[in-house]
């Protein structure tokens, strides 16, 4: 059984490499319909052995996709966008064994990243692998759909990561304009078409035009008939728009309608909770957040809903924490924040809130609460390390030590010292950094990563001879010297920069700063050149 990957592209040089990389070994052919790239897209695709067809863009996604599918030789079609990557491509072929005669497609998990830190995530499902039959063709000029309502499709755990919604990506004006053009044309043809309205809403939402988006979403709700996969999302998107605008009374009735239809869709409760919070109705807000947490325990059906991550856990806990704080219920707020951290242990903002709530309380109490409420027993040492480094960022030296003290497994001790050393190095407290890196050395856990750091710390502390010793005894002295030099240069350059920020009018400082920048630049250039050779 052969699989053909079908893709349509236009100026995708930024992502296409990683996309093809993720599937190249698991598909039998790559078919690309390019609709007029002026960048390196085609060149990159060729290096992956893609068959490239150039097709003039006709404002119709389905047409372009179907053009590619028509040329595919595989029995199965996998379709991806260039801004997506497939995780665990090696499971693709084994999947086909599950298919019987009736099976026409497979559902994949789609993870949409909404911010650059990849913290906000939306999940959904979509048919991405389907049998190459004549009738399995796309329809709809934009946000093209496959006619799979009555076919048998199989649920899979395979994940596709989608980066196209990242703010840095979606602002691609050209594409946005293109989408808008097609949609406006379609809505003119069929003003009552809810799916087109829905997609127009999406485009406007992305452009930040919340009023227009709301308008189209509301029209979509109005004209919607029968069952479909996106209605719940309509309500969710509406809630997003409303919360961006000053929410009006109307908001509550729309949410009520949505919740009546989709009583187990947590995102809607969460949105309403935010609204109640914003108008100071603490109790009602808390009730909605609690409902989200409750639904989380029951696990809402991901088949049914596109779920924003965190709503059934840390986001609602954080909301509860805020509300308890407002209501003056410090104890409850602490626990809510701690549980929030448990679900999202890298959340610096919440950790500092929790710290603030422990102002004046002994640090031991604070650490005890974290251990009790925010650390899962089975991963205790991992979490301890993690919190320790966060607490270090927050200048909580005492807490860092307390947190690390509790580490049980001796295999973590080395990492703890490394972490402490690195933290102190970052804080430019070189004597402390030396102290901790040296312990690492004593435990014979000196690594290639640690020795340049120790050497640089020693050097910055004026102990040049010792720095030499550390490097010459390390596993790879050459690399060590180079890395340590890089660190020292960075440090010196930074220091000069710091002084310059304090005294920006000082001419000799400006000159010194320029000097370090020149050295650093040359050094980096040289390293890159060597690397490419």
């Amino acid at each position, binding site marked *: 059984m052969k699989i053909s990957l079908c893709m349509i592209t236009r100026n995708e040089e930024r992502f296409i490499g990683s996309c093809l990389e993720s599937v190249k070994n698991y598909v039998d052919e790559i078919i690309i319909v390019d609709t007029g790239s002026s960048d390196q897209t085609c060149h990159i695709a060729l290096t992956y052995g893609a068959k490239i067809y150039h097709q003039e863009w006709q404002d119709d996604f389905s047409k372009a996709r179907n053009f590619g599918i028509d040329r595919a030789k595989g029995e199965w079609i996998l379709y991806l966008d260039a801004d997506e990557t497939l995780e665990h491509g090696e499971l693709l072929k084994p999947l086909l064994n599950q298919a019987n005669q009736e099976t026409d497609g497979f559902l994949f998990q789609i993870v949409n990243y909404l911010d650059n830190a990849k913290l906000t995530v939306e999940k959904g499902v979509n048919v991405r692998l389907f049998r190459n039959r004549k009738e399995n063709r796309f329809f709809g000029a934009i946000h093209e759909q496959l006619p799979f309502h009555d076919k048998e499709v199989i649920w899979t755990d395979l994940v596709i990561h989608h980066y196209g919604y990242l703010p840095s990506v979606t602002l691609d004006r050209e594409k946005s304009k293109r989408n808008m053009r097609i949609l406006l044309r379609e809505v003119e043809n069929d003003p009552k078409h809810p799916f087109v309205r829905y997609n127009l809403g999406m485009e406007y939402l992305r452009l930040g035009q919340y009023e227009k988006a709301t308008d189209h979403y509301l029209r979509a709700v109005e004209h919607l008939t029968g069952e479909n996969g996106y209605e719940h999302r309509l309500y969710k998107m509406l809630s997003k728009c409303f919360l961006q605008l000053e929410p009006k009374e109307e908001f509550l009735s729309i949410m009520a309608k949505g919740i009546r239809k989709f009583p187990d869709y947590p995102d809607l409760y969460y949105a309403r909770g935010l609204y109640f919070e914003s108008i100071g109705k603490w109790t009602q807000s808390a009730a909605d957040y609690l409902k989200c947490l409750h639904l989380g325990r029951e696990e809402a059906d991901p088949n049914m809903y596109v779920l924003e991550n965190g709503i059934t856990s840390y986001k609602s806990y954080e909301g509860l924490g805020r509300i308890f704080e407002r209501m003056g219920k410090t104890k409850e707020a602490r626990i809510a924040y701690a549980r929030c951290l448990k679900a999202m242990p890298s959340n610096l903002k919440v950790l500092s809130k929790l710290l603030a709530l422990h102002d004046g309380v002994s640090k031991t109490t604070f650490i005890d609460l974290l251990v009790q409420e925010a650390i899962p027993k089975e991963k205790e040492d991992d979490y301890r390390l993690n919190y320790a480094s966060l607490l270090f960022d927050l200048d909580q030296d005492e807490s860092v030590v307390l947190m690390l003290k509790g580490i049980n497994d001796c295999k973590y001790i080395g990492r703890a010292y490394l972490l402490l050393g690195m933290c102190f190095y970052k804080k430019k407290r070189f004597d402390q950094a030396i102290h901790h890196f040296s312990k690492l050395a004593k435990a014979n856990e000196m690594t290639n990563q640690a020795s340049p750091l120790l050497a640089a710390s020693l050097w910055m502390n004026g102990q040049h001879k010792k720095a030499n010793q550390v490097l010459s005894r390390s596993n790879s002295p050459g690399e060590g*010297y180079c890395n340590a030099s890089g660190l020292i240069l960075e440090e010196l350059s930074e220091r000069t920069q710091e*002084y310059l920020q304090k*005294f920006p*009018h*000082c001419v*000799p400082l400006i000159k010194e700063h320029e*000097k370090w920048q*020149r*050295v650093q630049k*040359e050094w980096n250039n040289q390293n890159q050149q060597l690397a490419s050779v």
Partner: protein
Amino acid sequence: MSNQPMLSLCMIVKNEEKSLPISLKSVEGIADELIIVDTGSTDKTEEVAKEHGANVYKKKWRNDFSEVRNFAIEKAKGKWILILDADESILEGDAEKIKGLLHNPINEGYLFYIHSRYGNLSSSAPTQALRLFRNRKEYRYKNRVFERIPDEKLTHVADGLVSIIHHPNQERRIQMQRLKIRMLEEEIVQSPSDPYLHYVYGIELLNAGQMAESIAPLRTALKNASLMQVFTPHLYKCLVWSLIHTRKIEDALEVIIQGIKDFPQFTDLVFFRGQCHQQARKYSEAIKDFELCLKMKPAPMSFVPDEGITTYKAYFSLGQVHEALQNHEIALEQYEKAYKNARYFDEALYSAGTLLKDHPKLGELDQVLLGWMEEGLDQMMTLIDILCLQRQYEKALFYVDQTETIHGQNEDLLFARGICLMMLEYSAEAEQVYERITREHPYYPQVLLRRIQNYWFADQWKEAGVILEEIRGSQTLPSYTKLTYETIHALFAGSYTEFVDVGNKGLEIAAKLIEHLIYLNQTQKAKFLLPWLLLYGQPEQWVRIGEMLAEKGDIQTAEDIFNRIKGQDQKQHYKERICSRLLLKDERQAAKHVLTWGGTDELGICGFLLWNRMYSNELSGFLKTGMRSKRLDAEFKAKLARLVELIDHEN
């Protein structure tokens, strides 16, 4: 013309026989009537007054200025009242202006400027006060001290653009000050929320040098004052001034911000803000403010602005800031501008002198300054003084000779010649020069002080003892000077002496002497005096001594002083100054050592530059050591070699 006199002068006097004639002469020809109220003179005041044609009335003093003033006004027949004190006079040429004011039909009163000839508290002088007003029943004084006619009573007041010169007798002034402060305190108890009383009370404390104490009343005044009151801008200025001089920089900034909001055109506040930033080492903000001052117009006269805020003082401050930032060339340019905008502003020359001496690359000290100055005896004397201060005694001597040739012999030049010779260790020659100034000459006591120094330097203790005897007997030398010289002599003689506190001026004499001794390589002698100075002296004096020690390479003693200094800021300041002094001499190792005193967390600009340049050298050395390692593979070796080359090239 009616028979009613036009202008009545009203004056209160007590024992003013000396100053009264000057005062009355200044209103000759404009005052048609002189009303003088005597509150109990025991000298010839009354006769003098009558000689000038005054009507003299007696009135018992009852601790109430308003009462007496109003009494005088009651007696006046003129259409207008002119208020003057016996130690004041109308500025020459301004009397004519007063005549013109009397015919203005609109105005009810005029504000005059009072320039005080005492003190150096420029921020409280000149002040503006109502001194000329129509003779109407409603216009009567209020308040027992700092009497004034309330603003709400007398409206339509204009700036008279007339100046009054105030030249008080020093002792009287202090007496009056004490009296006024006491009376004010009583009055404040009676009307505790009157902003004016608190304002003048604060100013009096300021003038008495009680900065810290002045803050509370000035704050109270500001709290109760409204923006409409004439004195409010000046009140802001006085409060800020007190706060800055008691080093409450953050508080000062807060007041300044409010003040600028209320009176955006008050340049002095912008200038003060610059000074605050300068003190806090926020040099960029300071530069911004001083440059802003240069762009602004001077504040209206009624705000009592300082002179030169928008010109030479701003340039001068910019010079100081750039000097601190090690931008020597820019600093010199600013000093030049400051001086050229105010040829009497010698401070700019002195600062430029220090800068030029420390950074010879900028040019020859004497040549540069001569290029700025106009020709003249005063200018030459200034130059010679600067050269002496910068210890360029040979050059100074050259200019003494030259000036003598052009302008002839004078005592100042003799004096300068003596100092130069003394510091060049021509002790006998110096003595000869000093001897040419005779006992009758007003400089003679000063010469005595130089002569004893000369003997001290030359270890001629017996001769020094003789001079000391003469110093003791001097009528004109102040007591603190005598006590200081006495103590120094005793310390040198090794006789047991208590460390007495001789006050700031006395200690300054000692500090200068210590500097001289170190300069002359007589550090041993200096060390006799050092503990005494460290006990009572000022941080700035220690810095100067430390710098001189550094100059002479005595780092150990400099460090001893460092350890005696209290306060992190002052330690830091001392350290930085010593370090930069060593750097000027290119003694990097010593400078680096100094930087380690008390930890290296704060380096200062100079220290950091040193640190940074040393790092370059050390990094290159470090890498060269690394390259000798046998376990280095060729690729990394080549990379490191290139880096070393890069760094060395930059140095």
